[in-house]
């Protein structure tokens, strides 16, 4: 096992704040590359606006495709933040410390990206105003509250606000630290943001309290968001394989699965890019790996339920749908890929402590998981529409158009860009948490062995 080194506060400050205070070359390169991809996606979106939804590969009856899949995917990723920071905070898991902020930031950016898709995907995006906001067009009509598509924006924006606030509150002490280490305009901005943080005991207590409160308050939102996203499908009685009662928890746990995996990816990158071996240690990968095993297995249980009960009534169209998913090209290939990447490759690997503590392996397995989870959403959404109801005459196929693929790709670049820029402006590993960790770390001697221990927070 890798020893937890004793680090002085000064040392911690130096290590964690350097990316903010100095800019490496690769940063600019990365920003440039990502920026290019993002603008390509923007171009694709503009093309869509200009030419009409026809540029997509959608048809009748497959009215939803890659964009909606990706929407669900990013909302899923956004569940990383709360899962790690809020729940682990409440359960006082010690190993959460270095990864909480990364997770929260990931939440914010992925959620913001996700929110773009339903709007871009609609037939007349410029008219979606009175869908997203309860704005009355002097005709006395308000959005139709019965529609899951109205639940969506409310849930998403609540969640977005909540997690942004969360990031800010936990950021306060570090902002102060930055304020004290910068000059000129940055200094001004940081001092503005730091809200006059001086680190008095009262401030600390309030900050901690706010953290706990926000965690507790955001939990229901966390659950509701993906439940509601799942109900976009679960409420649709007409689409084979969508109208399943298990969808809400199935989607949520799936979201946690992909979200936590995404955090692992991020951790590995941080460790490599910012050389934070002392902070993001293999024991953290170990712990999060164990968490992932549990989450993935729970998710798989729900997946099994969903699939099993999809065939429960033996309705011919049910059977047809499942046949399509499992046996028919191209779904059969996607299904195999999905099962392998989302569960059967990573989870067995994670069972080995050696793997869990190997950063590179964790990085790649976590990437696999998210490939799989994207496919999962695809396999839920598209085949269901392609085999809608008993009208075999209408059963159709869907091929994504380059435009759609471009927009999907760009969304990944967008999230990455966002986090990168954030890392340039704020520390991605919370300095104060790192210090707290140093303080609470302890040891116990049992016989001849020394057992790492922690002072239990009250």
């Amino acid at each position, binding site marked *: 096992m890798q020893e937890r080194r004793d680090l002085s506060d000064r040392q911690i400050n130096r290590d964690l704040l350097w990316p903010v205070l100095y800019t490496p070359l690769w940063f600019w390169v990365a920003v440039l590359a990502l920026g290019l991809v993002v603008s390509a996606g923007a171009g694709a979106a503009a093309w869509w606006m200009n030419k009409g939804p026809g540029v997509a590969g959608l048809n009748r009856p497959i009215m939803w495709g890659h964009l909606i899949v990706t929407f669900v995917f990013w909302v899923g990723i956004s569940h990383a933040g709360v899962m790690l920071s809020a729940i682990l905070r409440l359960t006082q898991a010690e190993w959460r410390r270095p990864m909480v902020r990364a997770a929260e930031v990931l939440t914010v950016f992925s959620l913001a990206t996700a929110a773009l898709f339903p709007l871009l995907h609609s037939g007349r995006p410029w008219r979606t105003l009175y869908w997203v906001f309860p704005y009355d067009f002097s005709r006395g009509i308000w959005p139709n509250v019965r529609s899951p598509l109205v639940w969506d924006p409310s849930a998403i924006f609540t969640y977005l606000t909540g997690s942004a606030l969360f990031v800010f509150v936990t950021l306060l002490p570090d902002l102060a630290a930055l304020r004290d280490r910068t000059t000129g305009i940055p200094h001004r901005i940081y001092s503005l943001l730091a809200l006059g943080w001086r680190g008095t005991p009262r401030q600390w207590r309030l900050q901690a309290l706010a953290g706990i409160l926000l965690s507790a308050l955001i939990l229901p939102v966390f659950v509701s968001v993906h439940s509601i996203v799942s109900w976009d499908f679960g409420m649709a*009685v007409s689409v084979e394989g969508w109208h399943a009662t298990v969808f809400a928890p*199935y989607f949520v746990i799936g979201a946690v699965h992909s979200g936590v995996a995404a955090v692992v990816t991020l951790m590995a990158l941080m460790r490599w890019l910012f050389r934070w071996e002392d902070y993001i240690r293999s024991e953290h990968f170990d712990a999060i790996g164990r968490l992932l095993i549990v989450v993935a297995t729970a998710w798989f249980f729900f997946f099994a339920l969903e699939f*099993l009960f999809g065939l*429960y009534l033996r309705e011919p169209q049910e059977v047809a749908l499942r046949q399509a998913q499992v046996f028919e090209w191209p779904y059969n290939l996607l299904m195999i890929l999905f099962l392998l990447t989302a569960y059967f490759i990573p989870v067995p690997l994670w069972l080995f402590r050696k793997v869990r503590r190997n950063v590179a392996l964790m990085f790649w397995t976590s990437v696999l998981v998210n490939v799989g989870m994207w496919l999962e959403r695809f396999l839920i959404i598209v085949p269901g529409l392609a085999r809608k109801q008993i009208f075999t005459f209408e059963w159709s196929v869907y091929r994504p158009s380059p435009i759609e693929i471009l927009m999907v790709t760009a969304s990944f670049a967008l999230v990455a860009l966002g986090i990168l820029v954030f890392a340039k402006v704020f520390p991605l590993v919370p300095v104060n948490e790192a210090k707290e960790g140093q303080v609470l770390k302890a040891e116990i001697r049992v016989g001849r062995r020394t057992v790492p221990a922690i002072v239990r927070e009250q």
Partner: protein
Amino acid sequence: MHPLPRSTTTTRDHPVEEYPTSPREVAEDIVGRAEAPWPRWRWLVLALGALFLLGVVGLALRVGQGGDHTRWGYYAALLGFLYTVAGGAPIVSVATRMAKAHWRRPLARIAEVYAVVGVLTLLLFIPLMGVIPPAEGRNTIWIVGGVRQGWPPGAPVAYDLLTLVMVALGGLALLWIAAIPDLAALRDRGRGGLTALLSLGWRGTLRQWQVHRAALGVAGGLYFIAYVGGCIPFASDLVLSFVPGWKDSIFPAYYALSGLQAGLAAVVVTAFFLRTVGGYRRYIHVDQFWGAAKLLLALSLLWAYFHWSAFLTFWYGRTPTGQNLQVLLYFGPYRPLFIASLFLNWLIPLFAFLIGPVRRSVLGPTLVSFSILVGALLDRIRLHVATWSVPDPRGHTFEAVPPPVPLGVADGLLLVGGIGGALLLYVLALRFFLPMSAWEMKELTYLRVVRPFLKTRAVVLGKPE
């Protein structure tokens, strides 16, 4: 019993209760109780035995009234209750052990011993095998081709039986493995016979401990799978498939979850009695109730969440089948039961546990757990009786909501007797296995120390890799 002075050193806001400090002390105390009989335990056993006999009478009556499945709803409910509660309880010890939560240690054995009830559930299932309608024409999860022709043979009863056997055996295995070191201790104290046999010549060498740890992990995992996985056939064959067209993929998960909740509640209640009248005050502290309360809170929230996601889906779907189903389960004659369990399993735990002091007390969690147990029983009655009351489970659509089935004498006796019997088994097993896991308590004395920290004294917990 050895009266020990209770230290009253406190940290900032709550008393850090003192567990026995040295391993020897623990061994002396816990294992020492093996000889000392419990207060009034014979009476307890006799009373429970009497209840059990009532149950047997009830069973006789029930069988006398014939094999029409609509009359066996309450029996099925009893079975479901015992299966989920007694099956869920051991999970508590498995899960918390997996999470390395120290507060679990005094509760672990209490939870594991519930596995013995699995034997009773198994026996209870046998009469039902003649009652459950065959799979032909019914909805079923047995997805192998040609299910409607009743393939695989013996579906569903044979497979439900298999499930119950696996759960029972798995539970006993878990209990046994967990108890081996203690059994060995008892053996060394001169208790022979079965105890000696079961302790497998345990000497406590390092090797044995390593094997033991691994075995315990495996047994726990297997049991977890057996129970949760077992809920799928159990719930679909004994609840879902009695209503034609009821396609509810979350139901098995809900069934397992509510069982887990009730199981934990059972553990808490038991712990309370052991603490107050059982004389385990030194081991079972507020810590345990506190930790359990947090878990219960989470479970209650999930309980409501699962309920809601099923409810909403049917409600929004507005298919005739779905609407009839909701009449049957929520708005119809069984409405009182539904509302009752809504309060007992969700609202009461939720609002009680939102209050910190209630969470962090002995009485609070106990009362809430009791309400959860009652709620679970009512819930099982609602589910099983309502679904079993549908005369013809075949077909794809649920056209007519059947009239309610009143609680008969036989059913009453069965419920009382069944639960009584289960408790009887449990009490006897407790006597045999001891309610405290001595070796885990010893571990605690190593890994949990109270130290001065800054200006106060704080608990320092060791987290061995």
